[in-house]
């Protein structure tokens, strides 16, 4: 599903990533761990083609995305669901509208929206919050909305960048349960976190980073 080969990324003289190589198979749940500045987010941003690596290749679904033309980037991103630490929900749209946008992006016909939204909101436990704006939701609810939105386009891969970073332990646990449930349904998940307790509890494959280098590749 995903293969990084000798990926390096420099920002000027700063080496953000150095010779990163790993593979993620279909349906896997992989943790990227390490302290702040280790390069976890940079890897996720490279997979999203927010920028290009200085060296190396990144294959997603059999295609080298470093060679992807600019106009094809939206297509790539539509195959990937993303969850961020700061939620990145559309602030001026309701819970329902946030998901509608994702469905519209994927060109899913309007008539299917209502049923899909109902199912997703029920899955993440936001069915009673459909018409509320993000400002009316708690941190945990915002992250669940982000997750529902990420799932709405049936992504092949879900990238989660510190999804529990802004949440209390109990809420973080709920989010992790949801991610686990989604993973069991066959979705591939790569999650960046420095939350040791979560990583230990989940017992999933972990790639440990430090100062842009891979120090442990737990296969």
């Amino acid at each position, binding site marked *: 599903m995903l293969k990084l080969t000798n990926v390096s990324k420099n920002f000027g003289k700063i080496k953000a990533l150095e010779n990163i190589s790993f593979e993620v198979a279909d349906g896997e749940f992989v943790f990227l761990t390490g302290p702040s500045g280790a390069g976890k987010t940079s890897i996720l941003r490279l997979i*999203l083609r*927010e920028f290009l690596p200085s060296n190396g290749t990144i294959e997603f679904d059999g295609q080298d995305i470093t060679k992807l033309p600019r106009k094809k*980037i*939206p*297509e*790539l*991103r*539509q*195959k*990937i669901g*993303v969850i961020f630490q700061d939620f*990145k*929900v*559309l*602030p*001026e749209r309701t819970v329902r*509208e946030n998901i*509608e*946008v*994702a469905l*519209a*992006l*994927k*060109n899913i016909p*309007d008539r299917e929206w209502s049923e899909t939204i109902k199912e997703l909101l029920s899955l993440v436990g936001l069915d009673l919050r459909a018409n509320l704006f993000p400002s009316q939701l708690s941190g945990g609810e915002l992250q669940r909305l982000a997750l529902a*939105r990420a799932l709405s*386009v049936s992504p092949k891969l879900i990238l989660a960048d510190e999804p529990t970073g802004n949440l209390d332990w109990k809420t973080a646990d709920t989010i992790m349960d949801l991610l686990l449930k989604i993973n069991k349904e066959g979705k591939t998940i790569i999650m960046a976190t420095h939350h040791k307790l979560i990583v230990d509890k989940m017992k999933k494959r972990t790639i440990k980073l430090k100062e842009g280098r891979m120090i442990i590749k737990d296969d």
Partner: protein
Amino acid sequence: MIKIHLKQAASYIRRSPFQALASISVLGLTFFVATIISILVFSSNRVLNYFETRPQIIAFIKNDADDGKINTLREKLNNDTRVKNIRIVTKAEALEIYKKATADNPLLGELVSPSIFPASIEFSVINLSLAKEVIEETKKEDIVESVGFTASLEGGSTLGDVVERLKTITFYIRAAGIGFVIFLGATSFFVLLVVISMRITTRREEVEILELMGASPGFIRTPIILEAIYYAMVGVVMGWSMAVVLILYTVPTIISYFKTIPILPTNALNFMEILMIILATELAAGILIALGGSLLALGRTAKKK
């Protein structure tokens, strides 16, 4: 799909009503002036056309000329591409014209009989510069007694001068009107450019999120362009409606002032047809301004990134 963009565009407008009001007001003013100037140009053309097509040359027919010969001459003139608006005035009609002209003194009308008035053929030329040669040719006709011309050919001061003066006035109305409308159009364009640029700046966070979600540039741009088109459409309809109300209010006064000069169509349907053509043209121009302004704003923002 378009529903979500329309909903979003409507929400942008609702959220910043003063920006919307500013854009619509400027566009409304532009198209109000454009409608008035269009009608003014149309009317001045009609006045010009009225004077240009008035009979300029009168060929007085000899008393002994019969109808057959008069008709032959009319046919000949009909086939002449330099000549237009041919009309035969019989002796009786000439008397009627005389009576009308001397209506203040009926005695003058009663003292004359139709026989003393010559029949005539009145016509105009498509261009005043052709008048001299046409007059010379007409004079040579057997049945023509004499030829009169309503404007002297060199340094004339009657109809020819009026037409020339009207042409000059029409030219100035057209040039000044078009210049003013272009200036207002440019102002509308820049107001839209500023409003849309502000919209993009305030939406920066949303645009970034949409890009991460895989939104194409088209998806991101559509609600912004729709917003600009909405401003343009409302502005056009508002400006046009205000101008139409003003025009309809003043039409009776204008028509009675110009009397026989058909400055505006007296048929309501014809007049509405002209107003609808103006509206359609303005809507097309409004959409062009909206597309131009919003695409330029989007292009500039994309470059800054």
